[in-house]
């Protein structure tokens, strides 16, 4: 199961300039791909194009070699689950109902959920550690809990690939790392994950590949340790960035100050003179 974009170009409706310029991107089962880049670099448009939700002007997006345009929305959703960046449900839902909506594509538009669907929802709730919240409604959840519910909904579809647009937004360190651990578990179980993120340090601990976008073009695509460098990162983000290595070899980014740091005054109350 491979989702592939070949030389795709796309633009926002009503705008002249292209938002994606001949972009190549790919995600397959068993790999964790991180998509990064500055604001407006085309990350979300790339994810939407990979889902068939943004029209592609040139190039093609294929799922196992067959163009997305030839597949129905339900057919795509059965294989590829997505976590859109923004979502404003019109009405609060019970958590189990919200997760059951992930079974929509498997059920079709008219069938009612059966035992298999309830099992899938239970497994998804367990995977996202949501059993204790199953009876709550979505309007009573914190940002992190709501994000986990959305992820559980994506997992309930039992997809082969997961596409996530900024899944760590609104999450604190522990919840964000727990989310990445969960995604890594999914990859270990043979699912493919492609995640757009601004929080590179967390994501790079788990990434098999990183795809760096700038002004709608792919700057690098490869193993993080191989393709990321101080020069590339500083140029793409237009900011001086230092690059370190953690114990496990994962790259670690530290943005530098451009202005000189202020002179640190002595801490009040500390007795440095005696």
């Amino acid at each position, binding site marked *: 199961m491979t989702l592939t974009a070949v030389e795709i170009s796309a633009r926002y409706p009503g705008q002249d300039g292209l938002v994606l310029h001949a972009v190549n991107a790919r995600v397959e089962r068993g790999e964790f791909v991180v998509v990064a880049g500055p604001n407006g670099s085309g990350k979300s448009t790339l994810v939407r194009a990979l*889902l068939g939700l943004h029209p592609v002007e040139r190039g093609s997006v294929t799922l196992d070699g067959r163009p997305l345009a030839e597949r129905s929305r339900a057919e795509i959703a059965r294989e590829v689950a997505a976590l859109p960046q923004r979502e*404003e*449900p019109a009405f609060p*839902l*019970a958590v189990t109902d919200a997760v059951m909506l992930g079974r929509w594509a498997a059920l079709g*538009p*008219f069938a009612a959920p059966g035992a298999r669907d309830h099992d899938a929802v239970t497994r998804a709730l367990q995977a996202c550690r949501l059993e204790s919240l199953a009876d709550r409604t979505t309007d009573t959840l914190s940002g992190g809990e709501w994000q986990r519910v959305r992820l559980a909904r994506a997992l309930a*579809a039992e997809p082969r690939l997961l596409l996530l647009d900024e899944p760590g937004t609104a999450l604190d360190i522990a919840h964000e790392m727990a989310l990445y651990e969960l995604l890594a578990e999914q990859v270990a179980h043979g699912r493919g994950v492609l995640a757009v993120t601004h929080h590179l340090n967390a994501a790079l601990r788990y990434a098999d590949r990183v795809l760096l976008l700038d002004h709608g073009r792919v700057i690098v695509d490869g193993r993080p340790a191989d393709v990321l460098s101080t020069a590339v990162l500083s140029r793409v983000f237009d900011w001086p960035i230092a690059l370190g290595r953690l114990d496990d070899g994962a790259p670690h980014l530290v943005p530098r100050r451009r202005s000189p740091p202020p002179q640190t005054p002595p801490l009040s109350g500390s007795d440095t003179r005696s």
Partner: protein
Amino acid sequence: MPPTSSHQRRTLLILGIAALVAAVVGVFVGPVGYSPGEVLRALLDPAAPDAGIIRGLRLPRVALGFAVGGSLAVAGAALQAVVGNPLAEPWLLGLSGGASLGAVTGIVIGMPPGWSVAVMATVGALVAIALVYRVALVAGRRLDTRVLLLAGVVVGAFAGAVSAALLAISDPFTFRAAALWLFGGFAGAEWHGTIRFVMIATPTLLAIGWLGRGLDLLALGDETAAALGADVTRIRRAAVLATAVLTAATVSVAGVIGFVGLVVPHAVRWRTGPIHRRLFPAVFLAGGAFTVLADTVARTVLGGQELPVGVITALVGVPIFAVLLRRSAT
């Protein structure tokens, strides 16, 4: 509260009892002060002295009121999911205004009341919703539901103005015949009209029920709905078409009745949650009961003189809606 099947059964039982109580009240209470015994006798014996009023006027009136109220509430619930906004309803989206203009036009050009006026109302509702979408899509390339609601109000107001103009230049007899479609009410209820309405409403309600799972996704927003596998455009078109036909059918027999489609789904969703296969049956029962009770008040509160039922639904609906809105905002 988590909606379990026993919770759902209890909700439907409570609403079923409420609907039955409303129907009994509607049949037993009226401007002509019959005793319960007289009403019962008339119901059981077609030859009883008061059978004409009870069986020929009150019964069809209660049946029509219930069917129209339930249909309006279901149409409102469906439209709220279609546009992803709990403030949507047939009147606000211009459907009722368009249907009313269609019906008035039919009457003014001399069409006999019945199927032809129902068809005219449907055409009016469809033209209105097409205009609303056209206006909303011109304003922004992507459909913004807030713009859609504003467009609905504008198109509804325009249809109302044209209806008023048509009536102003028509003869007094036509004015009387067509005034029903402007003010709304069940004073003209009879069995033929009731059966005609049920014949249109039943398949349309079933179609909306079938679309319920699609509407579950539409209420999450287009992007999420499409990502979860819904053909958003097709589901939206089918749901709008079905609600337009249903609204037009209600307008062709009872005129424009506001707030049922707004308040009832809002109140019921609070108990059933927004999943439509649980929401729709409960909303139909609650909408029917609410409208029958409102109509009973409308025809009795001023003694012999009858108030338009829309006045009662608005007087009750607006404060309830205000309370629900405040509760949902906190």
